[in-house]
């Protein structure tokens, strides 16, 4: 056949038309689409039997009950447990992200020994036997040198069997230095101790209060047990409960409140004293309660409230007289008013003067240990272990007194003073801390004045972290003995911050351990055994699970079932007997209160001309500030007005911005007496002129690539300010300077 131009074209066109009419191109396009949508790297989640496990969240001290949905042996979703007394089905942003931590890249895979310099992040894996004998040798050496008291432990909490085992271990070994990380729990405990004579945690019956007066407490920023507070807040909205928020910045709590009263930063305690004075002067207090159950009001009024006339208060706080008087009247006029304090999430203890003043307000309206008031919730007493028997070395070590000075003559009422540790270690030679254990805490990130901390850190020869995650502290440790995560281990959680009833939650294994971890309880039992008597004698258990089940006794079985036990009929008792003071009554404690009130508002560090602005922290539910860093999902929710790329944005009033020649998103240098950082600015009308609000919870250097390197750590720029009356860290901010970069 001859192929001419004409037949060639007919062939091509005919062929094309024929193909187009056939199903082939459509089939191919379709196949192509399907093929391109089935790349092997797009995962197909495996199916399996669905089951639910009830456990307790341990990501913050909130004590929420969570239910984990499993598919086969995979945990796929964490949800709130319906009917749980704290969160009843609700769950917070961090709790929801727990599985990203469980399966995430920030986990410590096995015991690790430092291979390079500290902080270089070079590690060498070792077996548990090797790791434990390393620690045991070290500890035995120190004991031989009669230096058991140079071993210290920093722990995120002191309740529950694991922290108590740690404390017991130290006691049997010969060290009194079990130090809890600071928070408003310290100041509330001290307040209850000073005014009610009890060792207890403060619980707040927020569901039944009908007027909330909050001195900067971030009710919607994570104060107390967050989900519980959110639920209470919604209930207040439904029933018309009034919320008054006293705070220098328009936080979410302030925005949602019925009245936001901006005060000069740091002067909240003075406002509380001013309110108390109005209430006393106008006789608005509950006479029946005051006369029967309290002592010292008269002296207190004279010696503490004397100078806080409405005029003086107005000058110190910036809140005008009429607002003050009106507020005092509406507070005292409510049926069940409740005053709370602890700034933001309550990460910093605050001055005892402020806490005592706010607590006195509650006493004036008679709502101590009453419905809708502040309750003293006794520490749980189910841990009944035999007394530790010490030998001469241990007894001598325990005689030494605590390194942080808590309980000493100067700090007689303080139980833990972690913020003092860096300075003391830095000043000592050789270091007063020869070995440091860190349990469920991240002091390398959370302690203020990190320059000083880093110097002190270098002096400590041996640092062991028990962290499940590669947090800043673990990264800068010598040895990591990873604890399984809360979703992989048993542990009792006998505390829900701010909850007003005794509650024990149980965390239990939802999945098999994902890594080569060992529960810290077991580590301690094995270490004790390796050290021999008398330490070993204090640990008669086979393993931690046995210790836990024996300790919980009858509660062990039901806890496995429900995940929690609550004393729902608990009544704190409001009459006599509830107060364990010398007078048997609630004490306004004029003597201590006078000293405390003298330091009610500590001065921010720095001087005005060099540092014309005031830097304050701003907390948010979307930024975890404690031991846990934000998992990827939570980082994703951080708005672009807080984080842009890796840059942190600080909030300033447009007026401040104008004076400094800054506009939205512009780069600036933020300098404080403690450090400086490159930031950007976000213009926000909700922050007072002259104030810089800095988002907390960012500036991590460890964890994973989704968090590390983003933003600036607020703790780099601030330092502790010791409250002269209590020794607690009362810093609420620091002076600062902002200039164009």
């Amino acid at each position: 056949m001859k192929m001419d131009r004409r037949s060639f074209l007919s062939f091509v066109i005919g062929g094309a038309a024929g193909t187009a009419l056939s199903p082939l191109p459509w089939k191919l396009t379709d196949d192509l689409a399907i093929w391109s949508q089935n790349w092997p790297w797009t995962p197909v989640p495996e199916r399996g039997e669905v089951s639910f496990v009830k456990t307790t969240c341990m990501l913050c001290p909130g004590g929420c009950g969570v239910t984990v949905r499993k598919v086969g042996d995979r945990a796929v979703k964490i949800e709130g447990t319906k009917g749980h007394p704290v969160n009843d089905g609700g769950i917070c942003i961090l709790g929801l992200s727990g599985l990203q931590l469980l399966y995430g890249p920030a986990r410590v895979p096995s015991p690790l020994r430092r291979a390079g310099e500290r902080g270089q992040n070079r590690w060498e894996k070792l077996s548990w036997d090797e790791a434990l004998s390393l620690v045991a040798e070290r500890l035995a050496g120190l004991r031989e040198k009669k230096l058991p008291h140079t071993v210290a432990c920093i722990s995120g909490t002191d309740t529950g069997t694991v922290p108590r085992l740690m404390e017991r271990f130290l006691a049997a070994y010969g060290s009194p230095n079990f130090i809890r990380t600071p928070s408003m729990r310290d100041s509330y405990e001290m307040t209850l101790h000073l005014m009610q004579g009890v060792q207890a945690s403060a619980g707040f019956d927020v569901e039944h209060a009908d007027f909330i007066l909050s001195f900067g407490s971030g009710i919607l920023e994570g104060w107390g047990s967050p989900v519980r507070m959110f639920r209470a807040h919604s209930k207040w909205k439904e029933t018309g409960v009034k919320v008054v928020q006293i705070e220098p910045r328009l936080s979410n709590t302030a925005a949602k409140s019925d009245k936001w009263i901006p005060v000069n930063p740091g002067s909240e305690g003075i406002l509380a004293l001013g309110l108390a004075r109005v209430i006393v002067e106008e006789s608005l207090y509950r006479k029946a309660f005051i006369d029967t159950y309290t002592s010292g009001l008269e002296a207190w009024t004279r010696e503490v409230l004397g100078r806080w006339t409405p005029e003086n208060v107005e000058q110190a706080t910036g809140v005008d007289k009429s607002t003050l008087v009106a507020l005092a009247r509406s507070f005292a006029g409510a049926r069940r008013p409740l005053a709370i304090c602890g700034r933001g999430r309550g990460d910093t203890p605050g001055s005892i003067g402020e806490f005592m003043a706010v607590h006195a307000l509650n006493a004036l309206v008679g709502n101590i240990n009453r419905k809708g008031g502040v309750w003293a919730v006794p520490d749980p007493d189910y841990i009944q272990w035999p007394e530790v028997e010490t030998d001469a070395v241990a007894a001598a070590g325990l005689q030494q007194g605590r390194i942080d000075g808590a309980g000493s003559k100067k700090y007689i009422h303080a139980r833990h003073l972690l913020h003092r540790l860096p300075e003391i270690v830095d000043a000592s030679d050789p270091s007063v801390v020869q070995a440091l254990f860190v349990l469920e805490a991240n002091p390398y990130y959370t302690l203020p004045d990190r320059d000083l901390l880093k110097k002190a850190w270098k002096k400590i020869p041996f640092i062991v972290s028990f962290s499940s995650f590669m947090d800043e502290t673990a990264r800068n440790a010598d040895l990591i003995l990873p604890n399984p995560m809360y979703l992989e281990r048993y542990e009792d959680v006998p505390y829900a911050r701010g909850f007003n009833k005794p509650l024990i939650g149980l965390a239990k294994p939802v999945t098999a351990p994902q890594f080569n971890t060992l529960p810290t309880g077991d580590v301690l039992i094995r270490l004790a055994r390796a050290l021999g008597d008398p330490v070993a004698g204090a640990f008669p258990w086979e393993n931690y699970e046995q210790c836990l089940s024996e300790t919980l006794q009858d509660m062990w079985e039901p806890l496995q079932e429900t995940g929690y036990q609550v004393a729902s009929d608990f009544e704190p008792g409001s009459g006599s007997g509830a107060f364990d003071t010398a007078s048997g009554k609630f004490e306004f404690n004029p003597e201590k209160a006078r000293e405390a009130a003298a330091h009610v508002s500590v001065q921010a560090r720095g001087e005005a001309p060099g540092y014309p602005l005031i830097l304050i922290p701003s907390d948010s539910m979307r930024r975890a500030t404690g031991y846990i860093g934000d998992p990827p999902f939570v980082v994703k929710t951080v708005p672009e007005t807080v984080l842009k790329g890796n840059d942190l944005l600080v909030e300033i009033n447009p007026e401040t911005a104008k004076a400094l020649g800054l506009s939205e998103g512009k780069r600036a240098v933020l300098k404080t007496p403690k450090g400086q950082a490159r930031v950007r600015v976000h213009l926000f009308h909700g922050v007072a002129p002259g104030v810089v609000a800095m988002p907390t919870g960012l500036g991590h250097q460890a964890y994973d690539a989704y968090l590390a390197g983003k933003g600036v750590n607020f703790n780099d720029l601030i330092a502790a300010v010791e409250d002269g009356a209590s020794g607690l860290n009362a810093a609420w901010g620091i002076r600062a300077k902002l200039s164009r970069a």
Partner: protein
Amino acid sequence: MKHEQAKKYGMVIDLDKCTGCGACMVACMAENNIPFKKDETNKLDSITWMRVYQLTNGKPFPNTDICYIPRPCMHCEGDHGHSPCVSVCPATATDYSLKTGIVSQIYTRCFGCRYCMAACPYHARYFNWWDPVWPDGMEKYLNPDVSPRMRGVVEKCSFCFHRYQLAMNKAFLEGRRELEEAQYQTACAQACPAGAIVFGDLNNTKHRVHRIVQPDPAHGGRPKNPKAFRLLERLGTNPKVYYLSSREWVRRLADHYLPNETPGKGH
């Protein structure tokens, strides 16, 4: 079946209760296998089916006020099911179900033209510019009820449609044809610690959404409750997500009212 007789799922969000905590966003991400990148600060390419926006009244200190507004897909009914996105999709990859009132998104049909994104007045739709990548081991938490999406397709909130399917399957097995309110809830509504999100069938008088909103079927479901409102009401998209707020300035912003206009009296 006429839409008024079938189910019409919708949501009402109480902005007085919403605290802006972001739990709904993460509950959604965890339930629906939403991916994440190292940098999520460019919100234009950050996939958040549920996104919480912050509104401000713009007044100077100390009269400033802010309000948070969670924004899922509005599942617009439009005019007889002609939602803005459904009308423009050339691939029938998104459809309005007259049985449930849910606007679906079928990833395997979508070829990524993004007309729907341009058409959506609520920015509720997101494009997968990249393939999702989970760090080693993290794909273990993926939910088998929702397929992970691939590069090149659009995705959006589905009102957790897979939960509807599971609930219906269960109901059929138990010989029921109706769902109680609690039997089908979205992940965000379930998680919300403030209880601000209420989800249910707008056509069912027993459901809280119906009782709160009191939708007017004659006017595309416009709320009869004066405290309730919808976003950009005057566009006529007839969204099935309603909001409650006691603050006048919030209600005005919700429909982009000009300073001299009165809400409810737009053109």
